[in-house]
């Protein structure tokens, strides 16, 4: 017996020497049908690197994930790789707990940053440094129901381009029954300030000063500009005429339901839902159409801001673990994985080679809706307005804008007043936040 135990121990030791396994933690915020997709990615990675074990964990929504990261960092128990939403960028840079992706890139000749799509690199680059590894990127997109367009006598291949057209379409698409109850609305949305930010960038206007916080720390909100007011006025008009279904704040799934069930004919939400709507509308015998976000006027053309999330590397781990984590980040970013991810969700492939391959495979020819979303991103003007704002209080700023919207809808404030109030409140928040870093 004793001999057997000795033998077992020595075999295990030997095995341990030959396959010393590095274990890393990976936290993500992808729920629903995206969980198996991301878990498969990690499985593929482990097969390719048998010496690395990845503990993958779903840590709740984006804000919850950041909260958990903070708690973990404070208890010295931080993960190696964590998926943080785009608006967490400023907080993460200021946190002092991360290793900028740029540092790893500079040491690693196997990865050329030029392979990533420019607008996506632009978003995650602050002060000339790429801070995190792009993973799941999306923008807002206008989805519309071609079947309902046809029923209302509209050309299903002519989605609205300007605010005026958009409003007119909403009027045509809203239907009432004999008792005066609205049975079909022109438009729905997740009542999310993100849509406002997107439309602002499409109208080529800034959100905060100092070039959207990209040439220096932002000190003031500036979204109460002509473009901002036009967006609020449009939304106000939609509400006054009863052409829109609002959801509770930031309720993506309620907006999806409204659109899939045909209760609303148009929807502005994330491009990451293309796959979901393709299937959802088909099952209700509807045909899906997609279009660029409307502009205030044909003479104005900015572009959507990259949203979604990216992968951050957390410092304070041994070198071999950091290296393993970096390998994982590169792997998730590679062509094959990005293509799978793109097809399975609608998030952009963040790489040029992936787009090229998909084109050769005729994927975009067969799936025009995926193409619309990509085209909108690629055709966008490249400047600070479309690069997107960087502030540390984004989450709360969004709540304020959503509250301003509510106040306008409830008739307590005019669009101008509501936006002015929101801008002042957000400026206060930014100033408060900046006190930490003076």
């Amino acid at each position, binding site marked *: 017996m004793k001999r057997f135990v000795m033998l077992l121990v020595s075999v295990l030791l030997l095995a341990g020497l030959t396959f010393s396994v590095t274990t890393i933690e990976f936290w993500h915020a992808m729920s629903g049908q995206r969980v198996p997709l991301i878990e498969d990615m990690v499985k593929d990675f482990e097969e390719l690197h048998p010496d690395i074990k990845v503990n993958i964990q779903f840590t709740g929504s984006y*804000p*919850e994930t*950041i*909260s958990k990261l*903070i708690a973990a*960092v*404070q208890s010295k128990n931080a993960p190696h790789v964590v998926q943080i939403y785009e608006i967490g960028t400023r*907080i993460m840079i*200021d*946190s*002092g*707990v991360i290793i900028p992706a740029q540092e790893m890139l500079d040491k690693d000749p196997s990865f050329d940053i030029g392979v990533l799509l420019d607008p996506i690199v632009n978003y995650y680059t602050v002060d000339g440094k790429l801070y995190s590894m792009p993973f799941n990127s999306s923008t807002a997109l206008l989805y519309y129901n071609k079947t309902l367009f046809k029923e209302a006598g509209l050309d299903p291949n002519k989605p609205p381009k300007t605010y005026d057209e958009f409003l007119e379409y909403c009027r045509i698409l809203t239907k009432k029954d004999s*008792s005066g*109850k609205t049975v079909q609305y022109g438009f729905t949305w997740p*009542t999310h300030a993100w849509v406002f930010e997107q439309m602002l960038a499409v109208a080529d206007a800034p959100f905060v000063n100092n070039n959207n916080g990209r040439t220096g720390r932002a000190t003031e909100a500036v979204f109460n500009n002509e473009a901002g007011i036009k967006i609020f006025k449009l939304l106000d008009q939609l509400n006054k005429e009863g052409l829109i*279904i*609002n*959801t*509770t*704040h*930031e*309720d993506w799934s*309620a907006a999806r*339901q*409204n659109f899939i*069930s045909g*209760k609303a004919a148009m929807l502005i939400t994330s491009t990451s839902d293309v796959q979901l709507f393709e299937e959802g509308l088909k099952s209700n015998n509807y045909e899906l159409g997609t279009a660029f976000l409307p502009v205030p006027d044909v003479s104005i053309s900015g572009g959507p801001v990259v949203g979604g999330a990216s992968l951050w590397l957390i410092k304070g781990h041994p070198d071999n673990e950091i290296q393993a984590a970096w390998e994982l980040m590169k792997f998730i970013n590679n062509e094959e994985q990005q293509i799978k991810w793109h097809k399975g969700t609608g998030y952009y492939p963040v790489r040029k080679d992936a787009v090229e391959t998909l084109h050769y495979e005729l994927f975009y020819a067969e799936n025009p809706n995926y193409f619309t979303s990509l085209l909108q991103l690629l055709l966008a003007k490249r400047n600070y307005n479309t690069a997107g704002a960087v502030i*540390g*209080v984004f*989450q*709360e700023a969004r*709540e304020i804008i*959503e*509250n301003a919207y*509510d*106040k306008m*809808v*409830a008739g*307590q404030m005019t669009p101008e007043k509501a936006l002015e109030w929101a801008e002042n409140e957000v400026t206060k928040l930014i100033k*408060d936040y900046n*006190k*930490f*870093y003076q």
Partner: protein
Amino acid sequence: MKWGKYTPYILLIPTLVIIILFIYWPAVSSFMLSFYKVSPFGDIKIFVGFDNFLNLFKSKTYLNAIKVTVIYILVTVFSVIFLGYLIALLLDNKVFGVKFYRTLIFTPYAISFTIAGALWTFMLNPVAGHINYFLNRFFGISANWLTSQPFALISVMVTSIWKMLPFSIIFYLAGLQSIPEEVIESSIIDGANNWQRIWKIKFPILSPTTFYLIIMEITHAMFDSFGIIDIMTRGGPVESTTTMIYRLYLDSFYFQKTGEAAAQSVILFIIMCFITFFYFKFGEKSVHYQ
């Protein structure tokens, strides 16, 4: 085995360690944090004295949260006590299938607050929900229950009442069943009518139960309302359903404002201290125990 002088203390150590680690230590650090402004990752702390508290009481958002909390507590606690007592009276009757009704009525108690919220969200959906369907069918009206004022607050309160009601029914029913037959019989002989029996005899006898329930329901409404609000309205529209506990959650877990959130938790702590104080002070005196 001999009991030494210190044996009790040694036996208490495990409990004490756990309480200190998980209750006293976090409480003390909350108190300390409430005097600081803390950066999101907690690496920078700026001492601000009582500024966090002063700013809270100057901020319209927080004053509004207090207002919403007061309305919410008054309405839900009163309804839960009143309706709970009436339903318990009905269930106290010996009618056919009363056990079946009791079981049905108690089910909401077995459901968590979050699930209660999700259920009512389905029913209150403006376009596909049951409630608008029936209202529209019979009265030709409908409302955006969760996205417009004042309906959002009403919906949240109704859900809370529905959820918390069984708790008070159980206690009242147990109380009613333990009232001695003689008391009821003598009241009948003395010529008291049913109404007088319900309010002048049974209700006062049950006053300890009522008092206990009021305290319990206030704590429920203060703290457990979180689940329902988070699922149903997320505090909207225009913060009309943001209670103090939901505000605390937002500031701490959504906006990473640890200092402000700590100050809010201190305020909640003080309020709870008052409630407990009143509970012990007046609970013993003014309530009739049989």
